[in-house]
């Protein structure tokens, strides 16, 4: 298993200087160089991925070309982000299409043309992350690190992911990644709000609001039923889909899954700390 960066003070080397048109970011082990000639877009990118900037050779190179200088408003962004990425093989290239952007992927290079917004690159990052050769599962979940151990906290909207992530200074509160097979590693992903980091996965918590804090071990069938709804399935990529399916099954086989009923207050985190320490 790879060791993650220091969780409290990630060793970040900013290499997006004024002279450079490229920013290199680390998304849970996948290093991506993002290049754009437009300084306004680069400023958006710097703000968007500032916690992920790293000084390492890139696994994937994304070249972004801005086709419209107008920034999208919040509502337009929400609508644009909600449209899933579509991909289609065209000869040796993979054609990529989303809302108001399009591009091509050849080998480890992606050429993108789109609006003055960073969401197209978010789509590409998630797409690339799911297609990695190494098993990598993306879940709609918060990633917490408690006593050096990773806790994957998931549940439907309103279950308390963001609340718990705030209490525990989580790596991310919307999308988390899981790598490995038996020894799983929890990684923060740069989608929505998050910061770079990783930790060995200790347990999975299915969140439910409760009148008191308690955790209950749940069986494999129920765990699968509840977790599969939170997985970002690589639906259109049979190999990646099979890998994700296998990885979810392995996760249930090798990692304890609990229902965590909790009150949205620091005592919930205290209980998690005690359980990890035990």
């Amino acid at each position, binding site marked *: 298993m790879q060791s993650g960066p220091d969780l409290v003070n990630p060793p970040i080397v900013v290499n997006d200087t004024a002279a450079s048109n490229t920013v290199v970011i680390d998304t849970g082990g996948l290093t991506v160089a993002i290049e754009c000639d437009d300084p306004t877009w680069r400023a958006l990118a710097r703000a968007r991925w500032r916690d992920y900037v790293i000084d390492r050779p890139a696994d994937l190179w994304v070249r972004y070309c801005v086709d419209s200088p107008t920034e999208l408003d919040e509502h337009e962004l929400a609508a644009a982000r909600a449209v899933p990425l579509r991909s289609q093989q065209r000869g040796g290239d993979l054609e990529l299409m989303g809302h108001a952007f399009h591009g091509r992927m050849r080998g480890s290079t992606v050429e993108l043309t789109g609006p003055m917004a960073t969401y197209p690159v978010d789509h590409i990052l998630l797409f690339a992350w799911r297609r990695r050769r190494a098993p990598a599962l993306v879940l709609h979940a918060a990633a917490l690190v408690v006593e050096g151990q990773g806790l994957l906290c998931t549940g439907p909207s309103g279950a308390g992911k963001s609340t718990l992530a705030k209490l525990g200074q989580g790596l991310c509160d919307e999308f988390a990644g899981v790598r490995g097979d038996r020894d799983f590693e929890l990684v923060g992903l740069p989608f929505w709000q998050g910061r770079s980091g990783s930790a060995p996965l200790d347990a999975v918590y299915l969140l439910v609001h409760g009148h008191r804090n308690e955790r209950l071990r749940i069986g494999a069938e129920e765990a699968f039923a509840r977790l599969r709804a939170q997985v970002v399935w690589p639906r259109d990529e049979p190999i990646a889909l099979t890998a994700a*399916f296998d990885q979810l099954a392995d996760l249930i086989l090798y990692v304890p899954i609990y229902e965590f009923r909790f009150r949205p207050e620091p005592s919930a985190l205290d209980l998690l700390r005690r359980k990890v320490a035990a």
Partner: protein
Amino acid sequence: MRPRRGTHTAWRQIGDDTVVLDLRGKRMFGLNASAGAIWHALDNVESIDALADVFGDLDRSAIEAFVDQLGEHGLLAEGPVAVQDDLPFSEPVAPLVDLTPPAIIWSEAIPKVAATCAFLPGESDLCNQVPTS
């Protein structure tokens, strides 16, 4: 008829259930314990009769109905399958403990999810938040 698992499927044991992933139809199917045992045995028998012999504790009509159900959901190989003398090796079928009739107990489409948590309010079970940045 020689039923065969479709080559477009993958499956895993999850607790007592078997979950079958249909890569073509982009659905998952949950099979109960006896259905899972039949599913695992499918490629190693030449006919429904042979299947009924292997699972002698189960009602033959229930086995037939389950195999039909698999076919209706597109989980079996299509077209005639030549009878082979040397059937592929597989683990021997363990005796059934639970004699509940074999059945698909749930099925669900693989959902489409957008790349970021930026669904419009109320349009997704996964997230109803509007992005702040």
